[in-house]
């Protein structure tokens, strides 16, 4: 079902935890499954010097969080902004179609954290203008197909 990469990141997730004095914190939830991801960024001179996450979610959500943190650590904000969920999924050697949205969660968590940083620090991030992580984030309705 899952690739070895996914299982590796799921079993030994990188950068789990919190950053008490984070510069930006993003929390997103996925309307489809009710899972929640929280991302903490430490940013110095426009560079992500540290990142941690906490995830309540499925295996691929955890693996996606872990992979995303690895992919953005040490990167500039610009570079981080370029991170797409597709890139995360590819870095994991792919996700099952029904699990692609878990990688979206990771992308959104990162962007949310950057937005928070922008708000707190006053550093404008024009690319995030209009960005809103899925609106019905906490809509936990069941939806029978």
């Amino acid at each position, binding site marked *: 079902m*899952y690739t070895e990469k996914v*299982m590796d990141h*799921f*079993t030994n*997730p990188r950068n*789990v935890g919190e950053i008490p004095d984070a510069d930006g914190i993003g*929390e997103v939830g996925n309307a*489809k*499954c*009710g*899972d*929640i*991801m*929280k991302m903490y960024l430490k940013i110095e001179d426009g560079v992500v010097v540290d990142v941690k996450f*906490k*995830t*309540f*979610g*499925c*295996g691929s*959500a*955890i693996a996606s969080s872990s992979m995303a943190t690895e992919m953005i650590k040490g990167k500039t904000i610009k570079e981080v902004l370029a991170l797409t969920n597709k890139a995360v999924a590819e870095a994991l050697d792919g996700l099952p179609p*029904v699990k692609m949205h878990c990688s979206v969660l990771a992308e959104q968590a990162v962007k949310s954290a950057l937005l928070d940083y922008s708000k707190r620090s006053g550093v404008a991030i024009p690319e995030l203008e209009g960005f809103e992580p899925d609106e019905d984030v906490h809509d*936990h309705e*069941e*939806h*029978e*197909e």
Partner: protein
Amino acid sequence: MKQVYMDNAATTKMKKEVLDEMMPYFTEQYGNPSSIYRVGRESKKAVEEAREKVAKALGAKAKEIYFTSGGTESDNWAVKGVAYANKDKGNHIITTVIEHHAVLHTCKYLEKQGFEVTYLGVDEHGLIDLTELEKAIKDETILISIMYANNEIGTVQPIAEIGKIAKAKGVYFHTDAVQAVGSVEIDLENSDIDMLSLSGHKIYGPKGIGALYIKQGTKIHPFIHGGSQEKNRRAGTENIAYMVGLGKAIEMATADIDGHNKEIMALRDGLIQRINDKIDYVKLNGHPEKRLPGNVNFSFEFIEGEALLLSLDMVGIAGSSGSACTSGSLDPSHVLLAIGLPHEIAHGSLRLSIGDFNSEEELDYVVDNLAEIVQRLRNMSPLYEK
């Protein structure tokens, strides 16, 4: 690595005795039971002997037992067959929100075909309310379909009482007993059950065989049309080997239900005890007493089921979150939501279902690993310690 299979409600390993009885029908006994020559007659005999065994296990007559391709087909047949055969009388069906999808999705389909369905709710333990059932019956009601025991939380419904109500109102009563057979004494002759579904692979028989009991005189359409097999009611060349297997499996499963349950329940209660002792923020789902002897279903707060299952798998433990059928889905179990669990708690549920091949010593292995995994996942969870 140690392998501990704790998903016996999803499917069971076939017993050797069952396979042994089936084997001849994969080799020399290949005749078509509809044929009049020797090898065909022998197949026919095997089929009828298997039917006798199923009937005997349920206190039914052999001619009331029809073989099907599984519990799902049995459920489809019972519900659709009665619906279409009785639509002149009415178009209303009563079922519950916690049925297996084999009944639920069939009902949803029938709604699109012009039938009306009432889905009874359940209480926090998964029990229906008999008064509510009675109130739901109206002139147009033609069928009540309520499962004997739930596959996820193990709750056993008051089947005798439901039967009485159905009978008093002149409404057909079907029960999905796929999970109940072998765990509950069933005596159909002295019951008000008109139809009962069962499946082979839940009782150490093969996957892809089941049966539908249809009480004599029940008005029901065939579901699969064609040849004259199964007294013209279920067409298709007989799966002799599996019928024989089901016969043997049900014979074994019902030989000593009480004794068997005692053993399984000892394991179950031990497992529940240990989990309660060792892990905090947990909740046992289902009814404390009226539950299947092998069913353990816990919610672990702050974590998600799939992550839990994957982690257990990595140490060789096979469990399930809700029903196996929903594992492709993102929604938490409809049963857990129906008993009132909030979405995120329903999401963090684990079913460990104990079967005949499980042993006392496996339980320690399970609980030790489970405790560790739950802690690890909680440490990753943004909801924990909040």
